[in-house]
């Protein structure tokens, strides 16, 4: 395999369920350390797309490469943040953060170090020994985000992680995820239906079409950070993406 400049390459990804065409020939690349958002109308096959990436489904055609090799959850390090907060209720915050690392049977010292790092980054010290049900939804979501970053993933997939949250919380967690992304240099693929969120977070926004889903546009967002959601440039980008989604 040749050295590819891309971390992730998606080549002609197609998925049919019987006669239902869900994804049609999706191709794009993600550079190492890039933050990419995918936006699209609801029901446009975002979840199917994700399930293909995580290999819960296999594609009908096409493939997903990580570091030039066909993605294999056993070999590559994919981490995932779900739409619904789902920390394991029988584990404390710290045990939840350790969970993925322990499954991978990393050396204990390494686990301790990474978990401490994440606990500090996410300000979870005081909740270390709490169970998820004792925490607010936002704190629980922080555990899940922390748990994903702790894996030092090749690719971090986030599926509308803030969909259910109020606006203040969302802003807060968006900044949190940006901070983690910069600190860890992770490659992030963030799926959302919230256009403002996408424009705020991403270096690149991929706009999806209705079913059968293709990539309608691959849009660079080169606004400086921290971004101001009220600046004319920001609003212009946001409006542009909105029009792209509305315009069939």
């Amino acid at each position: 395999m040749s050295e590819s400049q891309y971390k992730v390459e998606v080549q002609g990804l197609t998925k049919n369920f019987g006669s239902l065409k869900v994804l049609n020939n999706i191709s794009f690349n993600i550079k190492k350390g890039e933050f990419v958002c995918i936006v699209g109308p609801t029901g446009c096959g975002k979840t199917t797309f994700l399930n293909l990436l995580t290999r819960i489904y296999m594609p009908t055609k096409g493939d997903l490469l990580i570091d030039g090799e066909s993605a294999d959850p056993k070999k590559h390090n994919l981490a995932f943040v779900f739409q619904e907060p789902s920390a394991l209720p029988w584990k404390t915050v710290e045990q939840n953060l350790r969970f993925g690392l322990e499954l991978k049977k990393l050396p204990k010292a390494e686990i301790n170090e990474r978990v401490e790092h994440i606990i500090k980054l996410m300000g979870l010290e005081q909740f270390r020994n709490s169970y998820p049900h004792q925490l607010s939804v936002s704190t629980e979501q922080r555990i899940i985000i922390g748990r994903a970053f702790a894996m030092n993933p090749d690719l971090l997939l986030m599926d509308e992680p803030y969909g259910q949250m109020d606006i203040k919380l969302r802003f807060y967690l968006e900044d949190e995820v940006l901070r983690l992304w910069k600190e860890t240099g992770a490659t992030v693929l963030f799926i959302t239906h919230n256009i403002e969120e996408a424009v705020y977070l991403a270096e690149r926004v991929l706009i999806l079409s209705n079913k059968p889903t293709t990539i309608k546009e691959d849009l660079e967002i080169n606004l400086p950070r921290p971004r101001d959601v009220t600046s004319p440039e920001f609003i212009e980008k946001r409006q542009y993406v909105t029009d792209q989604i509305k315009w069939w």
Partner: protein
Amino acid sequence: MRKEHEEIFLSEYERKELLRNRIYGVLPVLAIILLICLWFAASSNPASKFPSPMSVWERYLKILEKPIKDLGLMGHIWASLKRVFIALAFAWLLGISFGILIGWNKKANALLGPIFTAFRAVPPLAWVPLVTMWFGIGEFPKVLIVFVGALMPVVVNTQAGIANVQKEYMDIGTIFHANEWQMLTEIAIPSALDAIFAGIRNSTSAGWMVVLAAEMLGGKSGVGFLIVRGMDSGDYPLCLLSMICIGVVGYLLAIVIQFLERIICPWTAKKSN
């Protein structure tokens, strides 16, 4: 967290609410008092043979002085409890393992599930004739019958808990690439623990019921034996006294199990604390 010594201002409404909540502490006591009053009323008619609270109390004092078959009341209760505990230990060990096996492994379930379902429909007491034929009327057959009675609820609940793990928890396992063994031990079993505990609760009460029935069929000790003894000799206060003991012990057992569950599964405690 509210500080202990801080003065708390309560509005009229809040004070009323507090008062209303206190009623929940009072109501159980009220029910017991009411029951005793009813008991007095029911036994006051001399034509009824129903033993009065006084006669039960006297019977209680008498058994303290004059043991039955060398055992006092506590001795008989302990004799019954011992059988239950031994049977429960085996029932939990075997029941949880078997429940996990048929809950997790589809082939094992297909192979053993139907037999087990049919087996489950047979009440534990129906085993008495066969068990008596094989093992006589010693200690072992009683424990065996209790074991059979206590096994079912554990297996059923464990199997249900393991087979119905919430998909989102399994997904977490998948995402972190848990292997089959890790899926079982790290995800399925912990998430099924509350179901397993429901089985343990049911099996304890079932075991406590079955031991009394098993003891009524023969033996020289246990609370069930006391009831038969009372019946045979027309000693109805003894029967009633035994029944009260059964109720109280059953209640205490339930509390112990609840306490155990709190310790082993602290995460099932409600958000309110």
